[in-house]
Every structure is written in C-alpha cells, then in structure tokens.
C-alpha cells in the first residue's frame, strides 16, 4: 500500500481543518494521501487533476466545504460543475473514473475525514497502480462504478 501515490486537493477552510482535526485527535487512517492545500475547491482547475494522473498519481481526491457553506460563498458551486464533468469524462480519456473522487468535508467532520481517506485508499489499492489500472486486478467492487457515457 505504501507505494501508492494519492493526491488530495483540500480547501483551506473546511476540509483542511477537518483533516487537521482528524490528525490532532489521532484518528487512524492510511498515510498515503499527499495533501495540497488550496484556498477553495473553486480554485481546482480540472487540468490539475489530469496533470496529476499524467504524472503518475494513482488516485486524486478533492474535498471542500459543503455546498452552501463555502468560505467564499460560491467557489464550491463552480467546483461542483467542473468536477462532476471531469468525473464523467475520465473514462473517455482512458482513466478509470474510480481513481477520482470529490467530496465535501467540513471542519468539524474529522472522523468522517478519516473514513473518506480510508475508503479512498482501499478503493485505489484494489484498482492498483495506474500503470495497471482496472482490468489487471480483480479486486472487490469499488464505491462508484466507472461510467461509460451513452449518447
């Protein structure tokens, strides 16, 4: 598990604080996620996520404030559209959609954060390193089925 490269884009105000809370409360979670702190998920350019995959990330996680609670009011509303579109486009690029997950974790949800990280790490572990994505390993069912777009 320790050679997995997982990247997390966390918004400063909610998710980063929530992750911090999980840390100070010493909640158990895998340590493979490498966190990048941003002011807001609205700053997340989908290209950042794609670049991470091209550079060899096995999984990318984005976490921000719950919609309605954004520190900058509307940042995560924009993020929601962009990230959902990216989620749907990943299979077209040839990247397993299960490798990307976006969620909303507030500053008080430290316990939930630990769960999010554990689930995500387990999911990527079953998918394998990105060089051998999906079909190479017959692992347990993933949280979200990769979607193939229909017309």
């Amino acid at each position, binding site marked *: 598990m320790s050679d997995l490269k997982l990247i997390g884009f966390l918004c400063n105000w909610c998710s980063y604080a929530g992750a911090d809370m999980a840390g100070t409360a010493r909640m158990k979670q895998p340590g493979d996620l490498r966190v990048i702190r941003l002011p807001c998920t609205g700053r997340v350019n*989908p*290209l950042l996520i*794609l*670049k991470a995959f*091209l550079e060899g990330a096995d999984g990318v996680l984005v976490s921000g404030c*719950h*919609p*309605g609670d954004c520190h900058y009011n*509307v940042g995560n*509303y*924009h993020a*929601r*559209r*962009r*990230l*959902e*579109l990216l*989620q*749907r*486009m990943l*299979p*077209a*690029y*040839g*990247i*397993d*959609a299960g490798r990307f997950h*976006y*969620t*909303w974790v507030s500053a008080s949800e430290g316990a939930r954060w630990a769960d999010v990280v554990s689930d995500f790490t387990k999911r990527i572990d079953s998918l394998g390193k990105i060089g051998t*994505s*999906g*079909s*190479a390993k017959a692992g347990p069912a993933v949280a979200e089925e*990769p979607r*193939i*777009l*229909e*017309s």
Partner: protein
Amino acid sequence: MSEHITKIREVLAETDMVLGWTASGAGGVAAPARFHTAEEAAAAVFDSTCVHNLAVHLPRLKGRTVGIVAKACDARSIIELIAEREIDREQVRIIAVNCPAVLDVKAIWSRYGYGARVEDDGSELRVNGEMVDRKTFVQAKCANCTESKFASASASERLKLSEDFKSMSVEERREFWRDQYGRCIRCHACREACPMCYCRDVCIMQTTDPHWTGGGIDAGEAEMMQLIRVNHLAGRCTACGECERACPVGIPLMLLMEEQNRAIKEMFDYRAGIDPEAKPPLLTFDIKGDAWGDA
C-alpha cells in the same frame, strides 16, 4: 448560384467585407475568399466542397462589419462567439445557405490523388468524371447536424471509429490515446482552426508562466496540450469538426469533444451555439439543480 451572389452583394452594401468561397481550389473545389466589392462577389460559390468554418476569422476582424456565408454548423460557432461576447452581434451578418452536407475532400484526394476533380450535385458524386459512392465521402460530422437532415447521409469510416470508441474498455482507451497523441507534433493546427480558440498568443498551451506543458512532444507533453484544449472547450465546442480536419497527422480529436458535448447535454441540457443569450454552463451554477455526488 446567382441567388447566392445577389445575397452576398446585398450584404456587402452594409458591411466592410463578406467571407465566403470561390471555386479556386485545386480540382475545382471551393477555397475560402473575402469579397470586398460587388465585382469580386461574382466569383462566389457554395457547394459541398465548402468544408471550412469561416467563423474562425471573425475574432481577427473585430472593429469591422463582416458578412459571413455560414452553414448550420458554422452558424453555431458564430452564435457561441456572440454568446461569449467575443464578437459583437451588430458587426456580423450571417448569410445562411442550404447545405447539402459537406464532403471529406481530404479523404477523396487521399484515395484519388491530390487535385482530383470533384463534382457533386447532391445525389451523385463524381471524381475525375467517374461516379463514386457519395455516402463514403460525406463528412462524419454531418450525421450529427442540428438541421437533422443528414442522419443517414454519411457512411464514412470515421463513424465506425466513434462506435468502436464507445465500446472500448478504459484500458483500451488509454492505449488508444497514448498511440494517437504519440504522433501529435504540436503544430497547433487544431487550435488555429477552432473558432472558439481565440486566446492565440496568450494560450496556456505555450506560456512559460504558467508552464502547464513544455515545448516538446516527448513524455506526455503533447497529451497535456490536447487535454488543455478539450477542457477549455467544455460547454463551448460547437462540433464543427475543424480541429480534426486540420490535423496533419489524422488524430481523431472530435472523439473527446463528442463525449464531452454528450456529458454537457446530459448534465445541463445545453448545446453550445444555439442561443446567443445563453450563459455557458461552466461559467455559472445552479444551487439547487447541481445535486450530484455527496450533497
């Protein structure tokens, strides 16, 4: 044809120029032209070899009033440019034409040699005087025309690729794109041919700051460049197919654009270039309506 010329002359009376076509290409096929005077307009033609999307010239002609002969697909690009406030509605006069579905001239010349004479009357296609199967050479994009006239007009091989792509596994698609992008030479023809790519000299595919991708073609640089294009066209691509037509190494760029346009339609019930007053979906949000994933 004289009706076409008359229309152009009418529009010329109130514009600085009209963008259209003359039959001055090799083998008598149409080539883009600009008409500044009524005399020049006498050479105007419109037929199925008018494959180019002339809307690409509009952002470079700001400050002038321009008439433009437009097929339905071209008109979508013009409307999207207006919706994005890149061009001013008052400065454009669209001359709509009855398009018979355009031919894949590149494919014809690839098969019959460059400059082969192309004669198409809408039902019969002759190349160098010999009749050939028109359906094989009608561009694949016409099958998705918003005019809905040409759903079965094309039996182009390219349509088969769209079908095959849909049924590929994720692994197969990764291999497919690695293969395809492996031959991209970053000539930027796709960007220059696209009417929606008007960032030109500040395009982030080639800036040093931010430096999304280097100057070369090794190590996935070309792929990053293409991903930038696809992502920057989310909700903006009008499916004119010019990027794919311009590509000198035959990369099927429209495959990703088609997938993305489908996703946009699914998510927002939106197609670019239909409503000049519309707000492009990636520029806005719907607090209640965008309820995907964890809420």
